[in-house]
């Protein structure tokens, strides 16, 4: 689908301009497209994160569907409550979603998220992943990649990124997908697909963040694209346990000349300034290996 076509299909905006997100925020870009796909009959639960702040100040809000902010670890459970309440009220056509940051997802909220998935709660969980605690000023999260500077990893994070999408897939929920705010149409299609599935659905979106990742605001889309084109971030779906690479990631597998080196991704961002050349080389090797494995997995069941 082209941008022009989606404009005809989904002209309505549910993230209104004049909010308090930073210039070039990848997270609001992603939310814009998620809500275009879901439409008006959507209820959002948002645990503590940039999402609580960027909607703006009382008594106004930038989000034109119900947007319920809750404590940091409470997102999935509050969503479970809303799902249950709507069920008790007999409302069937409302989509409940949780819109949470990577810290809320991979760290403090992981128990609540896991519980909701184990109960196969009928909602969609979106993790917008800016790879650190941005609302509190860029501290490391379980989702921060190795090498990245944060205020609590001044020499770069030693440990690697927690793979939340696979953790969620291991809950055997019906739908897991990854996306990126630089691919609005990919996100739009996946969200539309998720909308009609019942049970817990999980979509993990990489959302570049100019102040936290240290790049110019105009590069938000470009940086996300580099993440995907370098293979640093893979776009895929796991539908009923079967793994499918999505088009942008498949493209770099099928056309190696379309791949960019991970060096280009790393060097474009100030947060990786402490990463050494030998580390970049090793990272490139890891990505090469990962892509080989992924090529084999494509179209196959992920679990036994």
């Amino acid at each position, binding site marked *: 689908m082209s941008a022009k076509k989606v404009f005809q299909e989904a002209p309505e905006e549910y993230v209104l301009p004049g909010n308090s997100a930073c210039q070039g925020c990848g997270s609001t870009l992603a939310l814009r497209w998620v809500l275009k796909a879901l439409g*008006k*009959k*959507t*209820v959002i*639960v948002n645990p503590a994160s940039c999402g*609580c*702040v960027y*909607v*703006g*100040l*009382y008594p106004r*809000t930038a*989000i*034109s*569907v*119900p*947007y*319920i*902010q*809750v*404590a940091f*670890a*409470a997102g*999935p*459970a*509050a*969503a*479970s*409550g*809303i*799902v*249950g*309440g*709507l*069920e*008790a*009220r007999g409302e069937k056509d*409302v989509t409940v979603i949780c819109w949470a940051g990577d810290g809320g997802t991979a760290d403090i909220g992981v*128990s*609540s998220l*896991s*519980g909701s998935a*184990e*109960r196969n709660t009928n909602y969609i969980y979106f993790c917008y992943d800016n790879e650190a605690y941005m609302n509190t000023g860029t501290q490391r999260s379980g989702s921060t990649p190795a090498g990245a500077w944060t205020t609590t990893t001044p020499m770069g994070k030693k440990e690697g990124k927690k793979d939340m999408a696979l953790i969620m897939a291991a809950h055997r929920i019906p739908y897991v997908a990854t996306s990126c705010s630089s691919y609005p149409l990919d996100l739009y299609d996946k969200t539309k697909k998720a909308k009609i599935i019942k049970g817990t659905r999980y979509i993990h979106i990489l959302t570049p963040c100019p102040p936290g990742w240290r790049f110019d605001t105009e590069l938000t889309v470009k940086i996300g694209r580099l993440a995907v084109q370098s293979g640093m971030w893979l776009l895929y779906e796991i539908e009923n346990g079967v793994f499918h690479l999505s088009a942008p990631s498949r493209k770099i597998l099928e056309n190696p000349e379309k791949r960019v080196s991970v060096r280009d991704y790393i060097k474009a961002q100030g947060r990786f300034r402490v990463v050494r050349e030998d580390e970049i080389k090793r990272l490139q090797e890891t990505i090469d290996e990962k892509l080989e494995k992924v090529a084999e997995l494509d179209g196959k069941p992920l679990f036994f």
Partner: protein
Amino acid sequence: METLILTGNHAVAYAVKMARVQFISCYPITPQTGIVEKLSDFILNGELEAVFVPVESEHSAMAACIGASLTGVRTFTATCSHGLAYMHEMVHWASATRLPIIMAVVNRTIGPPWNIWAEHGDSISQRDTGWIQLYTSNHQEAFDTVLQAYKVAEDPDVLLPVMVCLEGFVLSHTVQPVVIPNQEDVDAFIPHEPWKHIIIDVDNPITHGNLQMPEDWFYEFRFLMHRAMEAAKEKIVRCSKDFEKTFGRNHGHLVEEYKCDGADVILLSMGSLADQAKVAVDVLRDEGYKAGALKLRAFRPFPEEELRRVAKKTKCILVIDRNLSPGKGGAVASELKAALYGFKGMPMVLECVAGLGGRDVTLEEEVNLMKQAFKVVEEGGEPSGIIWLGLK
């Protein structure tokens, strides 16, 4: 109407069923678990039509009740002790969202060491969260108070959640007769009308919780919570009187007096000890002592005016607290003293901390304790710190 012999936990479960609660979310913890187990049975056999979400923690249980309550349905949860402490953040969230959630707290100590027995410290530690706290003394009161709690919580002038507290084991696991009213009478007493102040509605989208600056209205919203608590005093009294009209019983409204007129010493306590205090008073009266008992039913809102009204009648109030703030003492005693301070003709207050960790408090102990108080009064003595009951 029928009378059943029930545990305190089951009495609560019956009340929840008769209140036609639509959403329950809970996490097991001794000695509360009996409530949810019974509710699960009610749901299974079709006696209660409610969505039940078995969450993975108490924090989530309260979060789920908040979510459900935001859709306008009647919700219930139960917990105590470590579970309540773990839930703390969401306990605040529920009241500041002004949601009429009802939670049974089956009072239990907080470790270490592990100890599953009665103490009021768990709910007392939540006193500043903006929840109404009602303490019950027996099974019937626990049953009746759950029904009353829904009426008070959902009142448009109140809109605050309520903790209905009953002591673990002492009430939760013992059995007593409980009069179960007719369903029609309960329905008429607490008809359910979804609240309007905050409700999830895709046709009227709102955001809840977004930031307010210091110069905005946060301070005033907290002031409104305080006002709602103040309003709740009158509502609790009215609800208790209405309840009596329909069901023929009351348990005191905010406080319950027992032979306080002309008493030289009044024993003030909460929960099961307050029931037992009445017996102690009878024993003492038989021996010629001018004794009285006062039960504190509502700890939040704190009924200052009622306490002063009763306090005026006596020379000494002896408080038994089944909770302890190390470095200060018992909560009821401190709050009582604060309520009396500066008013004319107020009595001496003696404080005793007892029954921690489920340590049993006997009738004899209560009687002897009161005799100590009479002695202080007769000798014209002064309070001299906390009285530790049976400290070994």
